[in-house]
């Protein structure tokens, strides 16, 4: 009786074999399909905006595209986690396997060097669409690599920002608007420390990038634009770097939260929202969290000050879409990139992302008051220096070296000499 119903070993093996064969056939089918993309196939776009404002902004972008180009199929693949690390890893694997997406989000500038040899030339697209005239000059410069345009900007965040919780700075009796140098900032932090029991400056250092970024703005604020550009261009002045590290060590040793090492940006930023801390330095993506917080209004509850010493400057950051050569859908990708650099996309995306358009002709009325001010600062800025942690100033290799130095010499205890030496060596030509 049992014999009839029981599966015998051979049956199991046979069906396992059949399944395996079917699987192999399926795989072969898939790889076969990859080749037949053609020029006008769907645009596959990879990006890293998976949470919060990023996700909302990406959705708005997708919606705007479908509205404007109903005939072009758009396949947006968000890959989140670890900053952009997971996205970068997926992109790297696909480029390595010669299976590039239509386009992917990344930073332009020297950061493009890491994709040497796999990015296509879209100079004619920039010409045809008039992007060279409608975007700021820095965008035009930084989206070229080896003499050709490789990417199209979507928006820009500002990096030299100092955000504060209004009630905490008032309690301490500090006027943020009067801070115009790094030393004035240090004095203000001291005042907060002595007058209140709040954290003078909140810092999330579970990754090294926040500290590297803070170094960048401290260097810009203490040594000025020219020395900063010397650093970025590979002729750093050791004195300037050392003095920036000295200020940074003073701040990190005395005025940041004790649990900095075990928290990241999100939790650190929460200290501002909850009124536990006075100041935070971040790119203005941090402001997205304020906008989403309940009863936390710009001007009343939180404020913005250009990082002390960097008045009149706008530290640049670009979110851009890169164009891989050997593109699976060249025609549709061009449609996508043309859209990304256009007004509709930049308005749809940036108002939710908390960044501003890189075009100079965009109507800012749909943006909130804070972003309108940012856009004005952007337009009026005397200088727009490139950032160092987000791709525009230095190569990915150099960035990695800087972060190695921060990790080994400047994540407590703070070794100013070794960090200075490490930074100077890392960027020197």
């Amino acid at each position: 009786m049992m014999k009839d119903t029981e599966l015998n070993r051979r049956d199991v093996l046979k069906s396992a074999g059949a399944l395996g064969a079917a699987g192999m056939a399926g795989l072969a089918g898939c790889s076969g399909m990859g080749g037949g993309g053609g020029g006008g196939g769907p645009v596959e776009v990879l990006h890293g905006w998976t949470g919060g404002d990023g996700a909302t902004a990406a959705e708005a972008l997708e919606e705007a595209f479908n509205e404007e180009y109903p005939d072009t199929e758009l396949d947006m693949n968000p890959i989140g986690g670890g900053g952009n690390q997971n996205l970068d890893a997926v992109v790297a694997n696909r480029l390595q396997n010669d299976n590039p997406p239509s386009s992917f989000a990344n930073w332009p500038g020297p950061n493009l060097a890491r994709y040497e040899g796999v990015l296509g030339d879209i100079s004619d697209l920039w010409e045809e669409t008039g992007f060279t005239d409608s975007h700021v000059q820095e965008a035009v410069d930084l989206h070229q690599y080896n003499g050709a345009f490789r990417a199209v900007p979507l928006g820009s965040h500002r990096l030299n920002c100092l955000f504060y919780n209004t009630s905490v700075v008032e309690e301490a009796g500090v006027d943020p608007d009067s801070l115009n140098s790094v030393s004035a900032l240090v004095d203000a932090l001291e005042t907060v420390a002595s007058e209140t029991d709040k954290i003078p400056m909140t810092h999330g250092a579970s990754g090294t990038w926040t500290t590297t970024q803070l170094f960048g703005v401290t260097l810009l604020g203490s040594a000025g634009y020219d020395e900063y550009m010397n650093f970025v261009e590979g002729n750093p002045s050791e004195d300037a770097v050392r003095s920036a590290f000295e200020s940074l060590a003073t701040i990190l040793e005395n005025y940041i939260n004790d649990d900095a090492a075990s928290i990241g940006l999100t939790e650190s930023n929460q200290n501002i929202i909850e009124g536990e801390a006075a100041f935070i330095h971040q790119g203005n993506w941090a402001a997205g969290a304020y906008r989403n917080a309940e009863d936390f209004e710009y001007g009343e509850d939180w404020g913005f000050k250009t990082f002390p010493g960097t008045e009149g400057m706008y530290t640049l950051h670009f979110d851009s879409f890169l164009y891989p050569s050997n593109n699976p859908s060249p025609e549709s990708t061009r449609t996508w990139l043309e859209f990304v650099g256009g007004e509709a996309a930049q308005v749809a995306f940036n108002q939710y992302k908390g960044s501003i358009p890189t075009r100079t002709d965009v109507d800012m009325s749909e943006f909130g008051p804070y972003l309108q001010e940012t856009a004005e600062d952007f337009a009026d800025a005397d200088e727009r220096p490139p950032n160092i942690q987000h791709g525009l100033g230095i190569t990915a290799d150099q960035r990695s070296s800087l972060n190695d130095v921060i990790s080994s010499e400047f994540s407590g205890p703070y070794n100013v000499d070794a960090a200075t030496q490490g930074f100077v060596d890392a960027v020197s030509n």
Partner: protein
Amino acid sequence: MRDILSSVRQRLRRVARATRTSGDAGHGGEDGTEANGDDPALDDGAVVTDGGTTAGSDGFVDRLNDRFGDDFTESAPFWLPPFLLVGLFVYGAIAWNFVISLTDYQGFIGPDYSDLDFEMYVRAINDSAVIDATVNTFLLVVAFTAVALGFGLLLAILIDRNIRFENTFRTIYLLPMSLSFVVTAQFWLWMYNYNNGVVNIVLGTVGIGPISWIGNSSIVLWAVVFALVWQFSGYTMVVYLAGLRAIPTEHYEAARVDGASTLKMYWRVILPQLKGSTISAAIVLMVFALKAFDFLYSLVSGYRPPNGADILATKMVREAYSTNNWAYASAIAIILFLMALSIIGPYLYYEYKQGNL
């Protein structure tokens, strides 16, 4: 009887053939096919005497069967596909990875296989970050394995003392093992928080601390080891418990009758019999320690662990994906592979000696 006869006949036939073809002629397959074409009658004869079991086999197959055992070719459909798949995807990949480590491959323009050298290994030896990561990996493996074994053994012995709620305790201790590294890393990140982490709060009540567990580069590795021990001592406990249950009660009784104290009984009688459990648990733990990448990755949501806790696995991924230095990352991978091999190798040899392989 028939089998022996046929095998003898095959051998004889082969000797005859070998003498027929001159000594320096090709061997193996060539030999077989030639024989097959030459005198099919002989082969047919073999089939007949064998009663049909080796139907369709030729001289080459016979040869394989002789060399590797009677059912070598007959069983091939079962073991050959997995053998080939594993060979290609595991050992083939390792070999390829090694070759890449000899190139200067970086960025996205394919590797140049014409210029192979050990430059990346020289670079690794001179890279203080790699040396630190190697030392950390080694410390992590040794400390974690030793402590997890000791702690697991202690738990197993306590649970084995016929206590009440034995099953409940066993489940409680084993539970962390069922959680993913991603979850436990987040737990411990919160528990290690300087201000409001439970570890510092508990220590604070007895007047210690607060201690910066994650931020202090000389402590963080041990904090990670502790968290991993917490997660894996339950597993060690189960392995030891199985070992303990396999020891006959007579051994305990005999030790008691001879007047051994409890401590002495475990030390002299029970522990020596747990050697097998210890070895198998240690191997699993060490391999897990080498893979602590997941834990560190989740701890900081990135490839760069806190200063003082960088291990080869994180360094490797960082080199590969943050800066696309594929060749260098491959060299680090090979170093990591050799470390794993140096752990697994002796174990396999031991098992082989014991006759278990």
